[in-house]
């Protein structure tokens, strides 16, 4: 406090300037806020500067996005789902402008192998990976299956070895909620608990034996696959795929190859969408555009851009161009 009192008149004026600006033009003074679902926090592009980047848990994000005055500073969000109808109706931020929900890419899990190709299904993955599965009597029992051939005669006669994504990633959620839970719901529906949380736990708790391993910074996926034999598989995201050129052979899921085209158009199912949510109004259009422009640039979301290296599966080229074109028009209309 003493030091502040010693401020010269000139430096006092310097302190006052931003305060005056903030009072007179609140929207211009505050930095645009980009809320991001915590699981998508790894998508932060380094070149998008001048932005208040704030990671929030999935359940909390829609409320935080909406709980603001319509005249507040620009607010955007990156989320793996759009708002529900109820959330849209109650979204205060949206009342001051137009709510835009734009699909900008996907997060995907791809099963890579170092050996021959074979087909996977959620049912096979569930019975291979989950700790308790229905036994011959139908009741849940400890999973003791050790070879792929025991699950399906068409699969390789080799030990089950599966590398899973790190626990706190969105890829791990895709494995749990899309692959394992779906296989579980189809195979063990009659013996599952009624409580949804317990049911999710039963369906997605993976084995702790030698069949399952977790990805780590200590080894590369390619090295792990080489060390585990020809029928080992690694469930990886796009970032790992791009980082390791040795990864070549991807296994089809339910007969659908995880090709770029199949992931981009959603035919391949082990994916979650990534949406950019924003509210456009005359007051915020320029600030939103200043964030969304670099975020949606080809050098950010295109296959040769930065976000794929951080895990984003890009949209098809035509969709990327259309996305930029449509949002550009929205910004122009809102600013006018």
């Amino acid at each position: 406090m003493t030091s502040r009192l010693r401020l010269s008149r000139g430096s006092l004026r310097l302190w006052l300037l931003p305060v005056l600006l903030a009072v007179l033009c609140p929207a211009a003074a505050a930095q645009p806020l980009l809320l991001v679902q915590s699981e998508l926090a790894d998508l932060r592009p380094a070149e998008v500067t001048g932005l208040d980047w704030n990671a929030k848990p999935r359940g909390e994000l829609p409320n935080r996005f909406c709980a603001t005055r319509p005249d507040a500073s620009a607010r955007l969000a990156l989320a793996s789902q759009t708002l529900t109808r109820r959330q849209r109706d109650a979204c205060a931020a949206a009342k001051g402008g137009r709510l835009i929900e734009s699909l900008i890419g996907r997060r995907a899990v791809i099963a890579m192998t170092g050996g021959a190709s074979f087909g996977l299904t959620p049912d096979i993955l569930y019975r291979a990976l989950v700790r308790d599965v229905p036994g011959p009597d139908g009741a849940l029992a400890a999973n003791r299956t050790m070879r792929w051939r025991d699950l399906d005669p068409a699969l390789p006669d080799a030990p089950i070895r599966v590398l899973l994504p790190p626990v706190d990633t969105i890829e791990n959620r895709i494995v749990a909620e899309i692959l394992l839970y779906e296989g579980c719901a189809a195979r063990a529906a009659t013996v599952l608990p009624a409580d949804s949380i317990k049911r999710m736990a039963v369906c997605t708790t993976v084995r702790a034996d030698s069949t399952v391993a977790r990805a780590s910074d200590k080894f590369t996926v390619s090295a792990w696959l080489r060390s585990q034999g020809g029928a080992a598989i690694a469930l990886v995201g796009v970032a790992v795929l791009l980082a390791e050129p040795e990864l070549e052979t991807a296994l089809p899921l339910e007969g659908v190859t995880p090709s770029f085209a199949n992931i981009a158009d959603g035919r391949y199912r082990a994916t979650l969408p990534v949406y950019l949510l924003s509210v456009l109004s005359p007051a915020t259009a320029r600030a939103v555009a200043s964030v969304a422009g670099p975020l949606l640039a080809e050098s950010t979301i295109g296959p040769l851009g930065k976000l794929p290296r951080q895990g984003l599966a890009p949209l098809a080229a035509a969709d990327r161009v259309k996305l930029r074109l449509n949002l550009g028009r929205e910004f122009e209309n809102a600013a006018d």
Partner: protein
Amino acid sequence: MPPTDRGFSVMAGLVPAIRASTCAAADGRDKPGHDEQRTVPRSPSAVCMIAALFVLLAVGMLPAQAMEPGETVQASVRLADKQLPLPRGEWFVAGLGGQALPHDAVGPFGVIRTAVLLQRTGDRVTAIAEFNTNDIAVSDGWEPRGTCESVTPELGLVRYRSRLDFSCIVITATQTAANGPPAWQQARSFIAAHHLRIAETMLTAAFMVSDRQDVVDARLHFDPALFPEHDEAQRILLAWAARFAPEFEKGMANQLSGPPLDGPLRAALLSDTPALDRRLLALETLQRNGIITAADALSQQQAAQTERPRSAEDEFGSATMDGWFYRVSTPLINFVTAYGITQSGPLAIAITLTEQVAHSLIQAANQASWDRATSQATQHNVPWPALAHIGDVDRLTGASS
């Protein structure tokens, strides 16, 4: 990177450097004004001579360029003074040789050089590269490869076919147990000696490219066990081959540079439009640097989506439709015009028929004349060599390396 590869990279860098130099403008490839200075024929300056001497010395100091059996290479290899591209990864040179061709098929190209390279994972051969190319350049082009004539759109693509150059791709299958050129016999001996496993049938992308001087007949064979089921595998391979084919053209001009392209499986995961992706990024960079406006960038990005290589083969399309429209509308217009002038139905019909018959005769004569001129113009002295390939059951060729 092996020393030979380093040598290739240096060479690859030197060639465009020489071409880009104004000193080399006299070779006919430089365009006046390309460097914003008038290019006029002049005697080489001392600087140019020193630079040329330096380049020649640098080339002279390079290691041997021919690949050797047993060598491990990446990105590209050099065969008969041409670069031949390889998909990403390490490749092992397993067989080198020449092909003794039937004497009625031999042109003034010396011999056809053949190289067979293997890519493997553990003890399994996952891919084979089979390259054939002429040793001596000819001067009047090559007859187009007959294999491409009847290719269906699902199994191949004629990229272009002109008076002097030709490029086509065919997707097929290859029996590895069958015979082939001498280089393949060497590769089979290597596979047997090292107890490697190889699929009986491999998926093959065959590339046939020729220009005025040279011909490249390349086949890249892939282990089908790594691919999804049959139709999907063919689709993946054809889409990839269409993107890989331009690499052969660059290699024939010794202009291969940059990192190698991914193989078909990995490429299918990363993008289905890599050329378009690069174009979109380049347009964005131009816009960011203020060279083109945002509106221009956007309009060019939209235009870029419809610009893609198409088959040079005739397709049932707008040309055919235009032909039918023309054939129906012309007599109708003639009849209406004739009737308007003569006010007589029979006379108008007679005039229309006369015009139609005369027009048809002239058109037939014109077409025949064009066909004769075209067939004479596209006949070359050098037929496409009747090569032996891996999997050719009935053809055995003697070594002539």
